[in-house]
């Protein structure tokens, strides 16, 4: 287990043991007789000294056992894995949308620096980064679902989703040629994706804009222009390349914000993913679930950052 992940397990374990609580009592119930509580305590190894408990915990986590959810009575790991595709679909769509709109917008804003478009873009991005994600979610819900009736208020789909292949409703519907379900899935995706995409897009636009401005004032761009190479060619070939590579660097940062926002956004839209799982666990004081969620997100995050680092090394000739 990589050291960072191990450290995370340690911290999560520590957090869950800050407050002296008695999970055995919680599990047994308020009115359980003491013998039953003691039996449960023994069964779950809660009467062992802390270091032993930690060792067991590490072992458990390493084998994928994150305890049982106090609420659903199912293994936390199972709950998490089941809900992963929903969040993944949401996150992927949001990042894609953010990049597809954000990068060109950032480039255009930089090239037409201080124009009206540039100013509007800056205002929108600053607002986008200052908005509470859950508030934006509620606002969009209010306007588009409740007042205009264009999108559903909550949920991922009406009725059952397509038979799973990937777990992505959109992809699965497409693969099965079920256009109606595909359309429905999109309708349900629209608002949550928009909510997550806006702050991500704002960050991308800002970074891209700064990156392009940086490149535009660089010596090699000056050289190209001094030698009379057409401006649009310089922009297209050299500046976009730098901008896209810069975007990759930002994905790690953006992903973190995305996950953070996903928690509240899923809660607002009742999207059956990891985020709403976390929120429900909070409301139920389901410690195992919360800690499991934390570990899981941590692991995913570390993985994503690792991938980004590798991709960066591959794309930048200077690193080789």
């Amino acid at each position, binding site marked *: 287990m990589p050291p*960072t992940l191990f450290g995370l397990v340690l911290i999560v374990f520590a957090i869950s043991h800050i407050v002296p609580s008695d999970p055995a009592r919680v599990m047994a119930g308020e009115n359980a007789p003491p013998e039953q509580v003691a039996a449960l305590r023994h069964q779950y190894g809660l009467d062992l000294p802390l270091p032993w408990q930690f060792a067991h915990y590490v072992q458990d986590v390493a084998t994928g056992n994150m305890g049982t959810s106090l609420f659903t009575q199912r293994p936390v790991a199972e709950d998490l894995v089941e809900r992963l595709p929903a969040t993944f679909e949401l996150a992927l769509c949001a990042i894609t949308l953010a990049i597809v709109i954000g990068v060109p917008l950032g480039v255009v804003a930089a090239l037409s620096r201080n124009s009206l478009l540039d100013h509007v873009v800056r205002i929108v991005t600053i607002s986008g980064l200052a*908005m*509470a994600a859950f508030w934006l979610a*509620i*606002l969009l819900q209010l306007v588009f679902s409740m007042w205009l009736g264009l999108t559903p208020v909550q949920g991922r789909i009406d009725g059952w989703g397509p038979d799973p292949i990937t777990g992505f409703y959109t992809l699965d519907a497409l693969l099965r040629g079920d256009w109606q379900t595909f359309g429905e899935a999109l309708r349900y995706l629209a608002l949550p994706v928009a909510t997550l995409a806006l702050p991500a897009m704002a960050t991308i636009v800002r970074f891209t804009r700064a990156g392009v401005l940086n490149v535009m004032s660089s010596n090699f761009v000056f050289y190209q222009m001094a030698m009379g190479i057409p401006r649009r060619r310089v922009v297209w070939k050299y500046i976009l390349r730098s901008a896209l590579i810069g975007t990759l660097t930002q994905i790690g940062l953006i992903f*973190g914000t995305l996950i*953070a926002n996903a928690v509240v956004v899923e809660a607002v839209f009742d999207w059956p993913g990891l985020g709403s799982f*976390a929120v429900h666990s909070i409301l139920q004081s389901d410690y195992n679930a919360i800690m499991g*969620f934390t570990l899981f997100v*941590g692991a995913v995050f570390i993985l994503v950052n690792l991938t980004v680092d590798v991709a960066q090394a591959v794309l930048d000739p200077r690193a080789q």
Partner: protein
Amino acid sequence: MNTLRRLIRDRAALLGLIIIALLILAAVFAYPLSTFPQDVTNYDPPHRLLPPDGTYWFGTDRMGGDIYSRLLFGARLTILIAVVATSAAVLIGVPVGLVAGYYTNRVSDLLMRVSDIFLAVPQIVLAIAIAQTLGPAIQNVILALSVTYWPFWARLVYAETRSVKNEVFIEAAIALGASPLRVMVLHVLPSIASSVIVRTTIGMGGTILVAAALGFLGLGPPPPTPEWGRMIAESREFLPQAWWYAAAPGAAILLVVMGFNLLGDGLRDVLDPRLRRDVSAR
């Protein structure tokens, strides 16, 4: 001061400064500025969920409380949480980063490992875990935020200290016999100060957002405390009719965070134009 003058000339930064000044005024003068100061704690059920009008400027909430007044008192909470949590994180993280960056030994390695662990997860995820364990109270929110925020500063200051360490003026100071403490405080710290100041300002805004999210999830100070995030959560069951109930606190958050962001951006442009290239969110 010349810096201040240049800052004010930047209209966006000036706007940010004004907004924050308004926030402070709202918090300090909440009593005289509010129309129903008693609504912070009292319930007035006959007047619940009224739309904005001449008496209740932003309408009333589910307990009949005047939202405008509650927002003003909520400003106190917002400032308190933002300032205390961010200051604590900075006061812990900066020295840790300085020491870890200056020395190259196992302690320094360990400190950075610990920071990395915290940074491996988005702040709110850990903050939720901590706040959940400790229970809903304002001090727990502040604690959760500080504990999950200081590693960011440690990392930042560590990286900057490492790069500054190679500068000639540091070598000169060491050669002249300055003690490590002296070098760190009198030489390294001033050269990274502008970066720290800029990010602290922007960080206040970020902290407010995370605090509001915790409040929204029910992990913040319990009712009747007028915490802005919680107010938005409360409003949900009364939508779409009581739209003002959700709009007002959210707009307040938006305004305040934008103020900090604008000010931070302005400070960045003024204090060190070179920083303009590095456009990190926090």
